[in-house]
């Protein structure tokens, strides 16, 4: 354990198709918002951490150089972090390490993506190894569909039941997005809409899948001393976990997903959490696919293996349920990938500091945030609390 670390400010862009700004301008929007929220100036920061998905997404290498000015990096040290979809969580972890080590008092962490500028599925397909798997890959939907099929088979989950539950997950996320001023997709959908939407990769349909979004998120980390001086109500990092698996998709069991399970365990141990369903007030689960969200519930110990759909049907994870998940509308409604994991963290910070507006879970004190990356290879978790 290092020194205590707080989050004293967050900033997000309006996510969506942002043709009105160039990529560095988009990044600056989030940075400015975070500084305003924290009430500090660029002069106050000791370092910058920045991250995206593969740079190929926007056709520019070393994006942290491209954004140096927008990140207030001039005259400061900078690090880039890149773990695919889990980049946002890795970014937060890096900010934590920097401050917890005592090497910096205030660190700016920024995640960003402008997905409309390239071809996201073509880019993601290059995440696969070029010799064996890339030929058969089909971006994110291919891999996640294979994973959900394996999961249903392994736990003998009735296909219709899973379909119904996944549709409810979609409806609840889409409803929640209306409470979030930054969310990208804002449409009312019904269970029937989801079940009859266009097939992407069966059984996954259009409304089971996240959009391509342009967006950025900035989070400011601070030492205990600085946080207490600057911020009336900081959020405190209580637990973190990150785990990886083998690079080749077929070499680990994705239906029980070791990296997701172990990352959660590590974070719970650090935070002293024994019964997550009972102790957590809210969770921002990285949910680009409805079916996959249910696998995460199981990996994180929110419910027993194979019972994710039953708990969804009971309403456990919806607004007003025992453990509301993704009151922001989640990744399903907003996915600027390099920013997405950090948005999960920022949203959990807003929850425990009572700043989440219409999406506030009343009295939330302890929140989990999460992101997943690679071909189901990485999982990262950060738990924040209103108490030190």
């Amino acid at each position: 354990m290092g020194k205590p670390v707080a989050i004293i400010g967050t900033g997000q862009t309006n996510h969506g198709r942002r043709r009105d700004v160039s990529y560095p301008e988009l990044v600056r929007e989030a940075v400015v918002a975070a500084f305003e929220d924290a009430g500090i100036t660029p002069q106050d920061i000791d370092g910058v951490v920045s991250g995206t998905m593969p740079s190929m997404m926007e056709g520019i290498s070393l994006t942290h150089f491209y954004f140096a000015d927008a990140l207030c990096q001039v005259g400061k040290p900078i690090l880039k972090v890149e773990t695919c979809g889990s980049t946002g969580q890795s970014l937060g972890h890096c900010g934590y390490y920097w401050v917890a080590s005592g090497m910096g008092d205030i660190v700016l962490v920024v995640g960003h993506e402008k997905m409309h500028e390239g071809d996201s599925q073509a880019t993601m397909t290059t995440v696969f190894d070029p010799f064996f798997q890339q030929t058969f890959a089909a971006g994110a939907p291919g891999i996640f569909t294979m994973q959900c099929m394996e999961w249903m088979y392994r736990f003998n989950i009735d296909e219709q039941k899973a379909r119904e539950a996944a549709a409810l997950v979609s409806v609840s996320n889409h409803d929640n997005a209306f409470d979030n001023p930054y969310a990208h997709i804002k449409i009312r959908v019904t269970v029937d809409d989801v079940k009859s939407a266009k097939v992407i990769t069966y059984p996954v349909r259009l409304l089971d899948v996240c959009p391509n979004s342009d967006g950025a998120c900035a989070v400011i980390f601070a030492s205990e001393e600085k946080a207490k001086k600057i911020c009336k109500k900081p959020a405190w990092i209580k637990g973190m976990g990150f785990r990886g698996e083998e690079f080749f998709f077929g070499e680990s069991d994705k239906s029980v997903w070791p990296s997701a399970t172990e990352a959660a365990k590590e974070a719970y141990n650090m935070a002293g959490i024994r019964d997550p369903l009972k102790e957590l007030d809210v969770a921002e689960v990285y949910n680009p696919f409805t079916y996959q969200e249910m696998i995460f519930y199981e990996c994180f110990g929110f419910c027993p293996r194979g019972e994710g759909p039953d708990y969804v049907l009971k309403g456990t994870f919806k607004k007003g349920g025992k453990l509301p998940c993704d009151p922001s509308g989640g990744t399903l409604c907003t996915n600027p990938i390099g920013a997405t994991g950090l948005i999960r963290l920022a949203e959990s910070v807003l929850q425990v500091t009572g700043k989440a507006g219409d999406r506030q879970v009343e009295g939330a004190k302890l929140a989990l945030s999460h992101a997943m990356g690679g071909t189901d290879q990485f999982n990262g978790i950060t738990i924040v609390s209103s108490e030190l």
Partner: protein
Amino acid sequence: MAKEEPREFKAEVVVPYELAVGRTWTTFYDTLKEEKILGTKCRKCGRVFVPPRTFCPRCFEEMDEWVEVAQEGVVETWALINMPFYGQQLEIPFVSAQIRLDGSDTGFTHRIGGFDLKDFETVRTRVKLGSRVRTVWSKEKKGGILDIDYFEPVK
């Protein structure tokens, strides 16, 4: 100043690569030409990897023991891909699958085919999780992963 829609700028990055395959995978590809599927076995954990690995990703031990595995195996999972994107290597529709070949301990990524793939409902009567498939070889071998044309369901 006249009000103008924000502009977009067309750009393209095309970079050719020559990727070193390494000895282990060269051996694997060479034996595919002889219609054999080889894996490597970890002396420490005993697992057999297909495609072969130079070292065990969990034990970090070198793997120099070669094992020929069966040309039949079990479907661990699959997905019908009918979604086009830039740079796609196979013609859609195709069935992407993880196949655990008998005698191996990993899922081998390839495709399942040999029948009409247009409609999901038809496809799922032929492809089931836990069902068995066998190798169908390409007539012309180029020393690549498509020397195996596809896997077909075993009746």
